[in-house]
């Protein structure tokens, strides 16, 4: 059951979902696309709701709109008493007011289901295969892991979707990223997505929707697939997709907003048609052997500044064109010297969390490295579950004890340090091993230095006190209590 195809012949998964959502198409190819799920958070929505109010417009489909505060919320237990920062408090209060006034689905700050919008959506079963999902947030790409067409939009478009439940879109190009074979032990979904960006650059996917495929992708859990798709935007692509399979259906089944009974059967029947045809045409193809991917870290201030952990800090002269100056600026900001071994980079802190790596499997993986070990002297650590339910699950499994015993702070759910819009921030010059998604200048706090990596690599760095190959830390016998 698809709409009028935008082209004849074999189609990609992206083509199929796009076609199925066309409300109107202009002769020049501009389409009006129906939006199935609109996720809303407090930072990019106030001006959009204000626009509705000023024009006397309503939210067209409040039942398809889901609001949750995440960027500004403190992650300390005292947040039940309110947010201290007046501007952050005002922004969360504004979301609270707008959600109630316009009647959209809403998870307030102190609801157990509150969390990072891209973790809450899938957790509650709002995100389903074949859907169009948008949010005023670039990491909306996360939901592509379900075979949903999901991408970030600006605030004007948030207002457009609120008012009309549609978005004006032109077709993007199709890009295939195939990861063949299997990953080696110690290598994770985060390493895949960083390795892809390292290979294609932060503009490599610009103008494209990426479909990730291949054996290594199929072998990932749903949570791993979310990590991969989450960072499609760091590769320049607005959306990343993975075709749904039995793992997807198993993950979705039984969630609060997933279809049930006869609707479930009908849904699965359609979902099984959501794959790229064998002879579909691709505008760009990238292939990486899963066995070739090493645990990686970033050294600079762009997510494309990726190297295997065994590498050395590059010199500006290793690059060409405008990247030479950018690399010089990065090295200066990061306080690194060309030629030094990545494993000689000492860290001050560890951040485990974010919409990239704040799910239960991420916490399990990090705890697996930390069990019976402790943060190196002088290193501070923070674990921020992606949602209240992830936090609860972790506590049921005793993971909170593992983190606390290892010297970490165990926090409430939110975006936390990933973007420093709340009290969790790096100090100037503080160097952090982070599981988040952006190492931009100032992102985690003015002057803060971010090295992106997987949860196991971040945990291992915390134990060693410097960047390290997790496989070496895992090989050591745990300290006896």
């Amino acid at each position, binding site marked *: 059951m698809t709409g009028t195809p935008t082209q004849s012949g074999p189609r990609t998964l992206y083509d199929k979902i796009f076609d199925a959502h066309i409300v109107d198409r202009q002769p020049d190819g501009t389409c009006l696309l129906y939006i199935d799920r609109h996720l809303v958070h407090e930072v990019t929505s106030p001006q959009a709701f204000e626009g509705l109010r000023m024009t006397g417009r309503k939210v067209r489909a409040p039942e398809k709109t889901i609001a949750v505060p995440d960027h500004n919320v403190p992650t300390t237990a005292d947040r039940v008493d309110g947010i201290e*920062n007046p501007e952050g408090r005002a922004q969360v209060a504004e979301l609270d007011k707008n959600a109630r006034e316009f009647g959209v689905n809403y998870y307030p700050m102190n609801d157990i289901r509150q969390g990072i919008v891209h973790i809450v959506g899938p957790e509650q079963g709002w995100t389903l295969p074949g859907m169009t999902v948008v949010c005023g947030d670039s990491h909306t790409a996360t939901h592509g892991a379900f075979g949903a067409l999901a991408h970030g939009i600006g605030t004007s478009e948030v207002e457009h979707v609120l008012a009309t439940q549609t978005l004006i879109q032109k077709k993007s190009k199709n890009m295939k990223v195939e990861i063949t074979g299997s990953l080696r032990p110690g290598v994770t979904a985060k390493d895949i997505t960083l390795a892809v960006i390292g290979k294609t650059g932060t*503009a490599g996917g610009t103008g494209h929707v990426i479909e990730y495929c291949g054996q290594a992708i199929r072998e990932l859990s749903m949570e791993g697939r979310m990590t991969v798709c989450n960072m499609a935007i760091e590769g320049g692509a607005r959306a990343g997709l993975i075709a749904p399979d039995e793992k997807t259906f198993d993950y979705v089944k039984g969630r609060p907003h997933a279809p049930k009974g006869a609707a479930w059967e009908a849904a699965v029947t359609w979902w099984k048609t959501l794959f790229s045809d064998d002879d579909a045409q691709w505008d760009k193809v990238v292939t990486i052997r899963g066995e070739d991917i090493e645990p990686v870290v970033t050294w600079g201030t762009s997510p494309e500044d990726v190297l295997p952990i065994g590498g050395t800090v590059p010199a500006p002269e290793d690059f060409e064109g405008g990247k030479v*100056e950018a690399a010089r600026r990065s090295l200066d900001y990061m306080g690194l010297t060309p030629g030094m071994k990545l494993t000689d980079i000492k860290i001050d802190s560890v951040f485990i969390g974010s919409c990239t790596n704040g799910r239960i499997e991420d916490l399990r993986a990090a705890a697996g490295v930390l069990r019976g070990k402790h943060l190196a002297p002088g290193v501070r650590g923070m674990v921020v579950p992606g949602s209240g339910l992830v936090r609860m699950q972790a506590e049921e499994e005793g993971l909170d004890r593992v983190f606390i015993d290892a010297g970490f702070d165990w926090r409430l759910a939110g975006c936390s340090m990933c973007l420093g819009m709340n009290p969790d921030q790096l100090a100037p010059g503080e160097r952090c091993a982070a599981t988040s998604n952006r190492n931009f200048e100032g992102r985690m706090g003015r002057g803060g230095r971010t090295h992106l990596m997987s949860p196991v690599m971040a945990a291992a760095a915390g134990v060693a006190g410097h960047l390290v190959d997790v496989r070496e830390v895992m090989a050591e016998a745990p300290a006896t209590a």
Partner: protein
Amino acid sequence: MDKFTTLTGIAAPMPLVNIDTDMIIPKQFLKTIHRSGLGKNLFDEMRYHPDGSENPDFVLNKPAWRESQIIVAGDNFGCGSSREHAPWALLDYGIRAVISTSFADIFYNNCFKNGILPIMLPAEAVEALMKDAENGANARLTVDLESQTVTGADGTAYHFDIDPHRKHCLLNGLDDIGLTMEKARAIAAYETRIAQAQPWV
């Protein structure tokens, strides 16, 4: 939204590649619930020292470029977060056009919603215009949306491509929402069809 037709102004050279939206407007300024007033914090961490004083080395703090209305930038301008605060800050400062070899998709899209024209040109053209920009007020650039050209100080005109729908909206200052609302019947028909076929959506 203000119309964009023609613009002759000073261009600020920013050759750095991958200028991201965190650089354009850092996260601490996203706490506003308004669209206006962000211009003073445009490029905040590059423009000001930690004590709040101006960094005299930053291009927009130099006398020749304080009145810039155009930025000529390195590759992949506007990458990163979807924050529309980035174009809002540019607009509030007075920037109406950005010229680069490439833009991140979401930023590019957001510009058009705010009357800013992002212009994509080949590397040689951007290089030539960057040289003009380095001459500040002595080498103003002229952007003409109708003819889709940027004219440099020596009179060389560079033609750029733009989506016809976006051009039409920008030339006339049209609001997308109003245009889409005219298609309410088509939207309702789609919703009726989907409610039957995919009741779970």
